[in-house]
């Protein structure tokens, strides 16, 4: 982060800053005031989005065909007494507003309700399946980032190489994860027998799913990274680094990559969304247990509490990551903190 990088792109950055943080009236007092306002606005935004998601989930639970009674009391045991007992236990006879407040309260305590199908707390169901999904997501993210760095650093600023890389990236982006997974399975599991066909036992069973998941995300990351490296290679400081006799590889890895990684931080939010969606698909292809499989089975069994539990968890992760990324951007780039005009 030398000041030299700021000079040529100051106009762009200022424009971005203006878009990112519209001027707050009266926020131009002491130095900390704009920062506090910007941080506060992002935190409030995050809370509002989460609250709205929860409210939509509650409305869905209220409106969905098939009442909670249908799901909680098996038809064979449906006596008036059983129905009355369940109604009292779940507070189904109380006003909707009261139920809504209870719902919010339970969520704050980490209680996502009870599965219609499994008759277990949704939180337990999700927590017990979280492990394999987190492993897969982390491994997929690692594959994506490593490949993207290699692709970007090795091809940036080299016309032919970056043309080829561009084509490869575009193709990868167009390949559905599930098909990629099937082709990988066919080649490496069925034909070569290097990796197990299904399951989540040990590292060997993680390789192909992680590659299938990661390749789907590589394209965009590597493109953004390569543009960043190319921009950095044109900067004056690159000339001065070269003049010191630093090798090309060292220059790219130690200097250009560092500058190029800033825009990738803002991509993190998008990456999390991609991982959440991709995990569901990849788990199906490779027959892995996990959150995605739980959600899908629940969807087929019309088990709304479980599905909404997974959806709310996913929204929570998404909002938290995006808020952290926004706040990180404030830390990294002080120009975003004020609404000052260029």
């Amino acid at each position, binding site marked *: 982060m030398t000041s030299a990088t700021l000079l040529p792109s100051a106009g762009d950055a200022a424009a971005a800053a203006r*878009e990112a943080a519209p001027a707050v009236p009266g926020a131009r007092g002491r130095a900390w005031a704009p920062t506090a306002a910007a941080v506060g606005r992002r935190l409030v*935004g995050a809370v*509002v*989005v989460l609250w*709205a*998601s929860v409210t*939509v989930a509650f409305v*869905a639970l209220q*409106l*969905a*065909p098939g009442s909670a009674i249908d799901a909680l009391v098996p038809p064979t045991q449906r006596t008036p007494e059983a129905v009355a007992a369940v109604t009292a236990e779940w507070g189904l006879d109380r006003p909707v507003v009261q139920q809504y407040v209870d719902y919010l309260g339970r969520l704050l305590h980490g209680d996502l309700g009870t599965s219609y199908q499994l008759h277990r707390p949704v939180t337990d169901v999700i927590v017990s399946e979280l492990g394999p999904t987190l492993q897969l997501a982390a491994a997929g993210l690692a594959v994506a980032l490593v490949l993207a760095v290699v692709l970007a650093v090795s091809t940036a600023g080299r016309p032919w190489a970056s043309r080829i890389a561009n084509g490869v990236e*575009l*193709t990868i*982006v*167009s*390949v*559905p*994860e*599930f*098909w990629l997974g*099937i*082709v990988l*399975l*066919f080649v490496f599991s*069925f034909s070569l027998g290097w990796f197990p066909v299904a399951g989540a036992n040990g590292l060997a069973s993680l390789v192909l799913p992680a590659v299938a998941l990661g390749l789907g995300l590589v394209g965009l990351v590597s493109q953004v990274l390569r543009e960043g490296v190319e921009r950095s290679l044109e900067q004056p400081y690159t000339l001065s680094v070269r003049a010191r006799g630093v090798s090309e590889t060292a220059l790219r890895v130690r200097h250009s990559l560092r500058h190029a990684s800033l825009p990738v931080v803002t991509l993190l939010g998008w990456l999390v*969304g*991609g991982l*959440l*969606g991709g995990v*569901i*698909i990849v788990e*199906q*292809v490779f027959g892995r247990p996990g959150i995605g499989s739980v*959600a*899908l089975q*629940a*969807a*087929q069994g*019309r*088990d*709304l509490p479980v*599905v*909404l539990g*997974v*959806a709310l968890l*996913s*929204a929570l992760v*998404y*909002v938290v990551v995006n808020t952290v990324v926004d706040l990180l951007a404030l830390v990294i780039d002080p120009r975003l903190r004020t609404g000052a005009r260029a």
Partner: protein
Amino acid sequence: MTATIATPAAPASSSTDGRRGAGRPAGLAARLRTLPWGVLVASALLVLLLLVVAFPGLFASRGPLDADPLRVFLPPGHGGLLGTDQLGRDVWSRVVYGARYSVLIAVSATALGVLAGVLLGLLAGLGGRVTDEVTARGLDVVAAFPAILLAIVLVTIVGPGIPTVIVALAIASVPRYARIVRAETHVVRRSAYVEQSVTFGLRRTTLVARHVLPHAVVSVPILATIGLGTSILAASSLSFIGLGPKPPSPEWGAMLADGRNYLQNAWWISVFPGVAIVLVVLSVSVVGRWLQRRFEHREHA
């Protein structure tokens, strides 16, 4: 059946070509030659795709559901162009007829998403502060859910099927369009010429329809083209995990899910539908990006 469809089709397509050619005889040919070859190939593939969607009978001699117990698991070349599946159905015919599902779902989802997105974007951009803020937050909420998860929630509530997939993909794409229209509307609204039109006493509806809308939606067609590719990918993914059209129908994702069970001895059942998806999505992306580059060029100029 093939012939009856072919005869009316040929003059229809040649007449439209003729009309266009008559307008600019040299212009069109010259323009085509200046296109990058990638864009040219991609456009040709998309034209072919539209023909396949409109007249699948021209391209496939057998029906997508015609089973033949004597001709199961034939490899490509031995039984039809792309082989046959576990029921002796022709894989090529199924891929050809399957194009309809992808195009139908992706186009409807994109159209719905664009419509809702433009309306919401205008509402937010033209409305008061409260409307604007509420709409923007609402878009944030939708954007917090991946398309696949939205579809899973929707399927749980209303059941699986093509309409569910279309609505889920449409909802997931709304923020993309609404945000850009909202931002552009904000810009246009503060511009001098809109202020001038207000002083002329133009009616609000006229002002919006004639001056705000055209400027606010300039980049929407490009976004929609790229969104079309995303929708095709997502739609086939949803069918693959069993939320879309069910297996007897030749939807590409559903075919893959079905063929996966026979991967060990009949790879062609699952590989070729995937190739079709990749070719279509790649073509759409190539054309979309080319449009985007040209557009950005013009904006800067």
